[in-house]
């Protein structure tokens, strides 16, 4: 697959443990933003690989978020710590090719679980809460 020139979407990788109902909860934003947003649920944020980040950038992600469980809440104990290290490694690979490392960002779920991925995503994108 060739690299795209335009960078036009936001990728959100997140741990499924944060929102067990994520499949339902993300639909509203997917409908509203279309191709401008892509959600990637993971069984644990620690399963993220540098390649995931790079492939997201290659397919046109302008900004990539990785949302982990709050500190100490990782079901698999160190997954969220490992996720941070892998993000740093991916940042290094992007810097090597002259890209800004800031397009990759890691963030913790802002509160005790479960949390709606919709709420989290709107917070990251600076969008108003959906009208119920």
């Amino acid at each position, binding site marked *: 697959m060739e690299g795209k020139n335009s960078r036009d979407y936001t990728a959100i990788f997140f741990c499924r443990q944060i929102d067990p109902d994520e499949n339902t909860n993300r639909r509203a934003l997917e409908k509203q933003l279309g191709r401008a947003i892509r959600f990637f649920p993971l069984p644990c944020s620690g399963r993220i690989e540098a*390649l995931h980040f790079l492939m997201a950038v290659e397919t046109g992600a302008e900004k990539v978020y990785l949302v982990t469980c709050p500190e100490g809440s990782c079901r698999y104990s160190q997954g969220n710590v490992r996720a941070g290290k892998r993000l740093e490694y991916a940042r290094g690979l992007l810097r090597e090719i*002259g890209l800004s490392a800031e397009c990759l960002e890691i963030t913790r779920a802002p509160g005790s679980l479960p949390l709606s991925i919709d709420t989290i995503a709107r917070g990251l994108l600076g969008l108003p809460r959906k009208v119920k």
Partner: protein
Amino acid sequence: MISAERKPFEEIKSSIGRYKKILIVGCGTCVAECAAGGEKEVALLATQLRIDAARRRRKIEVKEMTLDRQCVYEFIDQLTPVAEQYEVILSLGCGAGVQAVAEVLPRTHIIPALNTTTIAETREAGVWLEDCRGCGDCKLDYFADICPITRCAKGLFNGPCGGSKDGRCEADPDSPCAWQLILDRLSATGRTESIDEVYPPANWSKMQGKGPRKIIREDQRA
């Protein structure tokens, strides 16, 4: 395993130069184990190259392949039918892999993407530690199975030197003093007299050879 690290991207990019049709070949054995040249690393490098090319508005074609071993003809031969479709092969094999592939495909430009270092163990996940420098004359049992050539910065056979401090090496305080380790293990197993005698000078010809060292086993030959 043979340990290696991927070269910096800039160096690889500079070696590739103007080539546009690139075959990246990884190896599934040693360099996969030390996360330098396995299938994942091939994919990462390919992605980096493609993103970089797109940014510079260059059209390139990158194919990814990973061989079980890059140092054995039967595996390398899988490249033979496809090699000529590419202008260059970027090898993520160790130094032996790169050279073996070049022997099989002498008319193809093969570029090494790794810096091969030594023979190492996986001490823990993500940490590879040099253990052996291939001296060709293994005497580990004299040194409590701690190689003085490899793990002592000065390669002393009658160590430690005066710079050993708190079990750390003068040349690299992050490294343990090999001779401290040797002495500790010999005391723990009641074998300290084994280093009372002066260990004689090594036969370095077994390590240096007269050029590349070769092993021949007639019973294994065709």
